């Protein structure tokens, strides 16, 4: 981190050589994205799990087009939620183990802002593949094009919120051994509104009705999460890193 601060053109020997907020965000985001891309197999696990879950339903329930069309919004959203839950442990564990998280705590920058950048990088690695795969899988569920579009839009609005809400649980359990299911259990209740709104928006699109209500609510949840969750996650990180 120190090398990057110097190379950004500031003189560290001078009095106030702090990074501006957007530069700081970019630094943390880029670093986390680079590290994540190096271990791209970790992130691809969640996309593969997403595909797996979506594949299971036609095999176990029914391959008939009308049944699948009815199931599609809920199933695809549930699979996206499960894929998020599965990938959350990646968010802080590596950094906690090698001490980078404690280095972040000692920096004179707002912890919540840096954690927001980390969570965004995590979402790019784990959420964006889900958003890309979702339309393909929706077509296999015989969803019409309009519904596929709304589904993708709802996932675009909803998965960052899921990642953010999950980051609270990831921060609380990052120091614990074998806390995978516990993590899922404590964040899942918080994620329920997003799940219900996303599935509902797609259902409405399928019925040809007005989808603006749920989509606006999803957007509202995203804005709420972006503003409030980093505070909670920062608090939780301080607790876990003790």
């Amino acid at each position, binding site marked *: 981190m120190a090398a990057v601060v110097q190379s950004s053109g500031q003189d560290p020997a001078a009095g106030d050589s702090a990074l501006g907020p957007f530069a700081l965000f970019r630094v943390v985001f880029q670093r986390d994205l680079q590290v994540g891309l190096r271990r791209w197999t970790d992130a691809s696990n969640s996309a593969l799990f997403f595909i797996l879950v979506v594949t299971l339903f036609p095999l176990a329930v029914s391959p008939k087009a009308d049944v699948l069309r009815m199931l599609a919004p809920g199933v695809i959203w549930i699979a996206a939620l499960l894929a998020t839950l599965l990938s959350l442990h990646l968010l802080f564990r590596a950094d906690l183990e090698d001490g980078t998280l404690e280095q972040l705590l000692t920096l004179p920058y707002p912890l919540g802002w840096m954690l927001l950048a980390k969570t965004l990088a995590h979402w790019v690695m784990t959420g964006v593949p889900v958003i890309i795969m979702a339309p393909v899988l929706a077509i296999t569920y015989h969803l019409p094009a309009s519904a596929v579009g709304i589904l993708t839009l709802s996932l675009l609005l909803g998965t960052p919120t899921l990642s953010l809400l999950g980051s*609270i649980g990831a921060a*609380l*359990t990052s*120091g*614990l051994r074998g*806390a995978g299911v*516990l993590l899922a*259990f*404590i964040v*899942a*209740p*918080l994620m*329920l509104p997003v799940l219900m709104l996303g599935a509902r928006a797609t259902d409405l699109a399928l019925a040809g009705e007005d989808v603006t209500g749920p989509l606006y609510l999803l957007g509202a949840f995203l804005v709420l999460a972006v503003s409030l969750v980093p505070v*909670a996650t920062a*608090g*939780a990180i301080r*607790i*876990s890193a*003790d």
Partner: protein
Amino acid sequence: MWTWFFRLASPPHFYALAGRLSTWLLAPAAVLLVIGTWGGLILAPPDYQQGDAFRIIYVHVPSAYLSMLIYVTMAVAGAIGLIWRMKLAHAVAASCAPIGASFTFAALVTGAVWGKPMWGTYWEWDPRLTSELVLLFLYFGYMGLRGAFENLTQADRASAVLAIAGVVNVPIIHFSVIWWASLHQGPTLSKLEAPSISGDMLWPLLTMILAFTFFFLGVLAMRVRAEVLEREVQSRWAQDVLRGASPVGVN
């Protein structure tokens, strides 16, 4: 002037106080329970629609009310512990959780038992029932998170953060019957309007709510005593109590 208040935060003083309080809370609870049960089961007339089956309201409503009250208590105690770093507040929060989970379970089960004759089904995925079930999950998540930490301070603070994050569910449960068209009936008791239940059915209900609340506070006092003793087991006052040298702690 505020010495009595600050002395409350001292474990040995609280241990003694809670010992005295628990008898003063559980005795009225027992009395009110008897009065409320007699009033509800015998004195109150049968409902014109539901007959005698409505009487489970005298267990269901107090349980549900307490399930939410206890969660809020847990969240507030956790917040006090986080902000003012009071160990005792964390002990109170930890003690609340099993009591709250039990009342939530009781509310769900008595609701199911009531639902079968009334609605024809034990369960329905409507907003109130679902959010009450989510409350049960929140309690279990709280207890699970607490148990997963080896360091007690970390456990206290992490579970306090979780409780505060989950408290948003309580208004959702409370207002769910107003915000959404729900199978569950609307609010009977309201702060500003006349209750929509007849008087001779109402007073046993209020008595039972009060009885359950006293019961919760009495049991909470007993649990916090045990929790405080366990946390402070290395200290001298606790050793004295355990040896029997000083039965009530510092007075």
